[in-house]
């Protein structure tokens, strides 16, 4: 057996995990390269953003969402003294390691949870003291996209997107259909193809897009996303990220995105909030984040 054949044979006999070793994500040693790539991406996104802001006037106006000194504990403390805000048209991405209470922040914004201390302000209104019925009204200002899309599996795609319209508007059936089609087209789905399908017939990415369309149906001022890109392939991740950016730019929607996907986060964020040890470890623009000397943040970015 020649050396060449021997090498080929060994390679074939190797365990798949060994075979993949060369393709594994590069770690700290080339985090510089990652940061450089992110910087280039940021510059491109910033240029596009500035151009659009000048053209449309979508900008950074008054504060729409404010979290003030929020503390929350169940059996153990979850959040301690967490504060940040989002101005009109901002996309704030909350990043952090798993289990640091990122999704809890969304539940606080929706008033599905009430903080032990601190205030949550939506459009200047403190929602922490609201009654259950008043909280339902505040939630109508918001669209939420869940990690698993949370589509109602007993309803078709059409009925899912139409649901908030039927619940809270007096639109006629024709108007509802027009709105559903518009929202499905906005998320790059063909209404004719998907409207009559059941959620179980859709792929993960399509479910997420229908979830976004349902969140958008009532034309909310605020969109909340819980891990919008988790469990998706890179191409679909890019599509969903693009959709969130498109929403911000075309509709001026204020968004809070909870994610552990730092690459997508950098593409879409106006501000990044890093949650570490139950507190906000960093709150600022992506540029400020890449420029920091904080060892934890550097390690956090390097991990990607």
């Amino acid at each position, binding site marked *: 057996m020649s050396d060449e054949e021997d090498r080929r044979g060994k390679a074939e006999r190797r365990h798949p995990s060994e075979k993949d070793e060369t393709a594994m994500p590069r770690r700290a040693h080339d985090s510089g390269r990652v940061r450089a790539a992110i910087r280039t991406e940021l510059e491109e996104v910033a240029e596009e953003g500035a151009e659009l802001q000048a053209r449309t006037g979508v900008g950074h106006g008054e504060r729409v969402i404010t979290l003030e000194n929020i503390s929350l504990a169940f059996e153990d403390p979850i959040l301690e003294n967490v504060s940040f805000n989002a101005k009109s048209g901002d996309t704030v991405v909350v990043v952090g390691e798993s289990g640091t209470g990122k999704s809890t922040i969304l539940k606080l914004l929706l008033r*599905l949870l009430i903080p032990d201390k601190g205030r949550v302000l939506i459009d200047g209104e403190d929602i922490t003291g609201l009654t259950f019925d008043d909280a*339902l*009204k505040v*939630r109508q200002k918001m669209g939420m996209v*869940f990690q698993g899309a949370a589509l*109602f599996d007993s309803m078709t795609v059409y009925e899912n997107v139409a649901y*908030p319209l039927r*619940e809270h508007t007096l639109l006629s059936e024709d108007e509802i259909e027009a709105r559903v089609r518009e929202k499905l087209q906005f998320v790059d789905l063909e209404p004719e193809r998907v409207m009559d399908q059941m959620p179980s017939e859709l792929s993960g990415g399509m479910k997420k897009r229908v979830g976004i369309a349902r969140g958008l149906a009532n034309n909310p001022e605020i969109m909340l996303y819980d891990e919008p890109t988790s469990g998706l392939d890179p191409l679909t991740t890019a599509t969903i990220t693009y959709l969130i950016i498109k929403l911000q730019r075309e509709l001026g929607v204020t968004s809070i995105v909870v994610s552990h996907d730092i690459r997508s986060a950098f593409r879409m964020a106006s501000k990044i909030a890093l949650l570490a040890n139950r507190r906000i470890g960093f709150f600022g623009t992506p540029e400020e984040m890449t420029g920091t000397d904080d060892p934890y943040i550097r390690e956090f970015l390097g991990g990607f």
Partner: protein
Amino acid sequence: MSDTLRSDYEATHLILESFNDAAKRGIYSLQEFFALAGKAIGFIFVKPFYTTDLFQQMDAIGVGSLGIVLLTGFFTGMVLALQSAVQLQTFGATDYIGSLIAGSMIRELGPVLAGLMVAGRVGSGIAAQLGSMRVTEQIDALNTLGTDPIKKLVTPRVLASLIMLPVLTVINDFVGILGGSIIAKFYLGKPASLYWRTVFEQMLAGGFTLHYIPNDFIQGLTKPFVFGGIISLVACYHGLKTTGGTEGVGNATTRTVVTASILILVVDYFLTQIILAVFPS
């Protein structure tokens, strides 16, 4: 304090503490259950009315359970007639078999059997459905879309059960008595006219309320109404409280069937006592 005394003291303290915790948890669960029941029943009278959901649930709970109720009712009536025939023959009282079957079916077996069947079939279904909705965040999605999940999911199920269980019980009673008539005719050789006459005599023998309503009917229809409430509320409670993924859904389903079945049997006893006191024969 000696070491033995200290360890005894600590052990007692630990036992008391765990007993205290369990009692607190129990009372808290009861409180949550009654809060859910109060809200669900209160929402029956508050707009918006989810009539489509109500009719869907009436179809699923009522029409969907028809087959199982027909089968159990029919065979229970037949076996009851068969067993009673042996006893009645001893006293030469086989003419009264219709009376015995009607009394047992309408007052007791009809409501309890329909209740147990529906608890198994519908209760488990409701718990599994709501449990799955909870673990896949669909309940949270309802909340965020500005809908009260209790109003949208629990109220239609409770109302549908309250309406459909008495209907199913009446059907169960009828096919049970019909099953008994077959045994009376072909096993005991009694004419159908005699059988049905004793059935009607039994229905009217328990006395009347408001001059026209036979007391047996009051007993036979109050029970399934209460059982319908128990089954749907227990199922919705366990479904909405589901945690821990698919395993949690399984646990919620099992707990629902066990709790609802036991409650039906226990409540049946107390309800019978109350009804007999309020509407004496």
